[in-house]
């Protein structure tokens, strides 16, 4: 009998027992593509984010990893509500903010902030550091005029900059220092959730570690939850106990750090991981060999049918083009969306997703888990049976 558990409609406390501060379900962002000319008809959609679900625990952090163009920034901008999603829900502290109006969003701006990727463009070149970091206080009328400077200086100190530099302009600082200014601005309103969109990828390698360490300290000190976006698995490993891997607008694998780095099950995760130096070799099949993905990420305007990764997947079979693999739970905190999910070099010959190689249902056990959290039971890939804790 096929036991497909329905996607949960609401976030439940996840296995770890920590309540989520952010619970995203079936998030979708389709950007319309307009024709040229006077009458601009919509001729298609960029499916930048298509049915993404995840949660971030209070004070915890989730890593969101994927190649360029897979929809990470769009996801971040949806959660901060710079964009309005075309579908799905964004539960923040129990409230669905996906449809909030600008007026409703105003108080929320204090709770959710963002650190931007490029410190060269994320600071207004014509504003002093004091004006940049103090802007949140001015906009939200939090302190009087006299209260701004002391708070700005305090924040500069927190992020490791010289408080005397309040009257300098961004161009007088190095890249790493500018990113610290951006971090200070994000901290000004004491947010509960920070979306860090590739906060170090524009920085010199020698400075990346410093900034990551700063973020880590801040998280501990102020109990801030992080959605940490990165394009490779090395950076988030240090930072995030849980990591979601995204490909072309969808989450293909999400797991706790231990499982993801030692037992990645999705071919895409395995390829990403093989590019990470110094990861224990067992994780990638005993040999230090980089899996090179051929080609580029396909256009999100016309994503491949079935599994979106199939055009580049080293183990793709015909069925992958016909049936889209569901996101299945395969461990206490481990989900994967692949018909042939398995450890590198040990991918099964028949689909584990309850279908045969032709795509017809076999009646095998499927533990679909499309919701943001984790189920209490999961599919044991070695036995093909449903198990629980």
């Amino acid at each position: 009998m096929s036991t497909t558990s329905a996607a949960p409609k609401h976030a439940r406390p996840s296995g770890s027992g920590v309540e989520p501060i952010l619970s995203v379900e079936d998030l979708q962002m389709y950007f319309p593509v307009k024709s040229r000319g006077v009458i601009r008809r919509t001729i298609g959609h960029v499916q930048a984010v298509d049915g993404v679900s995840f949660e971030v625990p209070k004070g915890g952090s989730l890593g969101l990893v994927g190649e360029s163009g897979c929809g990470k920034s769009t996801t971040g901008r949806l959660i901060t509500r710079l964009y309005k999603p075309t579908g799905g829900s964004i539960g923040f502290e129990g409230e669905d903010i996906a449809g909030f109006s600008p007026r409703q969003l105003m108080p929320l701006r204090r709770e959710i902030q963002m650190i931007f990727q490029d410190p060269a463009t994320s600071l207004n070149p014509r504003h002093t550091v004091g004006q940049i970091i103090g802007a949140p206080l001015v906009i939200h009328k939090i302190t009087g005029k006299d209260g701004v400077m002391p708070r700005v200086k305090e924040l500069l100190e927190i992020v490791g900059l010289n408080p005397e530099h309040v009257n300098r302009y961004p161009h007088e600082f190095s890249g790493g220092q500018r990113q610290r200014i951006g971090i200070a601005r994000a901290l000004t309103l004491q947010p509960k959730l920070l979306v860090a969109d590739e906060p170090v990828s524009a920085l010199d390698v020698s400075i990346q570690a410093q900034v990551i360490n700063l973020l880590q300290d801040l998280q501990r000190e102020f109990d801030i939850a992080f959605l940490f976006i990165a394009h490779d698995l090395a950076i988030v490993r240090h930072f995030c106990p849980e990591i979601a891997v995204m490909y072309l607008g969808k989450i293909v694998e999400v797991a706790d750090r231990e499982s993801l780095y030692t037992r990645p099950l999705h071919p895409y995760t395995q390829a990403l991981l093989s590019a990470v130096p110094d990861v224990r070799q067992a994780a990638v099949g005993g040999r230090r060999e980089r899996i090179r993905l051929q080609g580029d990420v396909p256009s999100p305007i016309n994503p491949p049918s079935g599994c979106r990764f199939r055009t580049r997947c080293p183990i793709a079979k015909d069925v992958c083009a016909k049936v889209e693999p569901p996101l299945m739970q395969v461990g206490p905190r481990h989900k994967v969306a692949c018909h042939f999910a398995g450890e590198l070099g040990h991918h099964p010959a028949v689909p584990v997703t309850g279908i045969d190689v032709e795509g017809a249902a076999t009646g095998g056990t499927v533990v679909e888990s499309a919701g943001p959290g984790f189920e209490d039971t999961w599919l044991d890939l070695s036995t093909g049976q449903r198990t629980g804790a």
Partner: protein
Amino acid sequence: MSLSESQLEVSPTPDEPKADDQPQSLEGLSPTKLAVRRFRKDRLSMIAFYVVAFVLVAAILAPIFTKIGIIDPISLNQDDKLIDPTLGGLPRGAAGGITWAHPLGIEPGTGRDVLSRLWYGVTFSLSISLAAAIVAIVVGTVLGIIAGFSGGLIDATVGRLIDLTLSFPQTLMLLALSSIFVAAIQQRTGLSTNPANAVYEIGVLGLFGWPAVARLIRGQVLSIREREFIEAAKLLGASPRRLYFKEILPNVWAPLLVSFTLITPQYVSAEAALSYLGVGIKPPTPTLGNILTDGVNYALTDFTYFLFPAIVIAVIVVSLNLFGDGVRDALDPKADR
């Protein structure tokens, strides 16, 4: 690009961020200061700057000097020793009646002092040109920012408005509607003829001048709005007003300053041309335009009376243009020319 594990392990403690704590070499030099420095290096620009400064000071001093009696652009001097009634009021003596008392001669027919009239004329002409330039800049900037930032229907509407304005037969309009509008302004505001003429001229010059500014600013805003600091401001809950005037406007100061310095001389010439066509401030109030217009009638009989206003206009227009070019080059060292 990527950060390897080992680098993370050996990373310095967070209390030690000073490694990248060295401000860049150009410490303390804001973009403005650098621009000023570049401007100063350019001889021609500096000469233009001094001429412009001299003209501005003179323009400011004219009303004061008139009040305390040093110059007198209005009083008639129907003195037969100065003008020759038999020659239709032409000045006696060489070169348009140049004497110590009247260094640039006297006006034919009226005997008014030409230097006084030109001097005060600079004040009126510059006031009109600057006021019209301000109108063009303000309207163009506001519409340019809103169009560039909003995009979509608003952008398209402003675009059509620009096309419409540019395709208007401006000069014809200026002439044809002048008397009607000036009369209407007088009726509405109770102004006398010449102030009403000035208002009309400023309004029309400004309203036909904004499209160029709007286009320029719109283009700038299109690239500025894609930068992340705009998103950061939105994320903080900044109002549209704050976005336009606090986040964007400071980033378009440079092109605005350049267009201001280049539009003003255009308007100085335009004032002269319009005067010739009979629009604008009328004598006895002097403007460079109406003096020159009068001078044209005497181009053969009293050449210097024609020459001096022409020289003054040329000097002002050329120096303002050179000054504007210098400002542009100083602000944008990459642009060639």
